[in-house]
């Protein structure tokens, strides 16, 4: 029997699930790691849902919790995770079968992001999600001046990496 609060939370998660999947894709090394991280982020969001007072945007709150979880968790990749994870999440093999131009480019993007540092990954993700510097500061706690410097460096790095992946160098 679900409580009203639980229903509210689940609706919220369903609405913003894409954000969590993206973070898992960027920070986890393999399919098991992604499942593990997805579960951990949802649990942490649920735990802090009670204290969420709508003082910040939902996406800011979700990004904070998700990035805090991804950055502080101990990696458990290459280890079979015995949890009842629904099969609705596509695994990497399934994705390989539907590779077309779009999938290929998407893989290049994720491949390039994976070559960035932990902090750069977070900054780039926020940039790609069209977040303002103000919101990035609210999520990461890094001053806007520092963010601008890091952003320029990360964007340049991303451009270079995608170029070299495309050209196979």
């Amino acid at each position, binding site marked *: 029997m679900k409580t009203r609060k639980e229903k509210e939370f689940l609706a919220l998660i369903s609405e913003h*699930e894409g954000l969590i999947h993206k973070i898992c894709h960027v920070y986890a090394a393999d399919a098991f790691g992604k499942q593990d991280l997805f579960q951990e982020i949802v*649990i942490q969001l649920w735990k802090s849902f009670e204290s969420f007072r709508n003082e910040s945007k939902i996406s800011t709150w979700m990004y904070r919790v998700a990035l805090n979880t991804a950055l502080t968790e101990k990696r458990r990749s290459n280890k079979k995770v015995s949890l009842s994870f629904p099969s609705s999440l596509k695994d990497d093999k399934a994705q390989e079968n539907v590779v077309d131009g*779009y999938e290929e480019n998407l893989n290049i993007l994720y491949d390039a992001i994976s070559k960035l540092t932990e902090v750069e990954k977070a900054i780039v993700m926020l940039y*790609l999600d069209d977040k303002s510097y103000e919101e990035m500061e609210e999520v990461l706690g890094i001053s806007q001046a520092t963010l601008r410097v*890091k952003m320029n460096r990360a964007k340049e790095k991303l451009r270079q990496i995608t170029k070299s992946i495309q050209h196979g160098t």
Partner: protein
Amino acid sequence: MELEKLKELWDNSSNASLPMNAEGLSQILNNSTRGPIASIKRNLTIEVLLVILLYGIIIWLISNHVDSTILYFDIILLGVAGILFLVYAFYKYKLLNKMECMACEVKSNLNLQLNSLEKLVKLYFRVGNIGIIFVYLVAGTISYIVDAGETVPIPHYVEILLFLAIGVVLVVINYHFSRWYLFNLYGKHIQKLKNILYEMDESEIR
């Protein structure tokens, strides 16, 4: 690839993973977290339960099987050790509860976790090293009381020197083992947090 193209790809990537059904999500909420702090809390709970169990067994053994002349002394020592352990466990719980703020800004949460984790490691290291000295001295005192009056083939001062020498060796071994154990348990994680924080501050430092 141009950055605008990357943004477009990123926007559409939300659809790359099929959404989970409500049942699946609901199922996740019933699972417990596997985060590092939750694991330390679980380990501490196991430690407390083990100590309670051990205490039960020791008290039962003393009251039923051991010579009543040392009973009073043992109970006092066990009581002191028990109280010290409870103080340690309470302080550790307190530290663990303040260790993370997942809804806070990432940098402040990382700082909080790093500082608390370092405090925790120091506490663990000190308690471990002082604890072994305490346990060794208590064990020595008990065996001295139990064996009082018995003749030993070596002179008394040699017996004391031997006792102290073994104690020093044990303390040195325990010191190095604790360092190695704590580094394996928390060292890599602490270093990872430090690296991330250093990277966050990097431009400000330059």
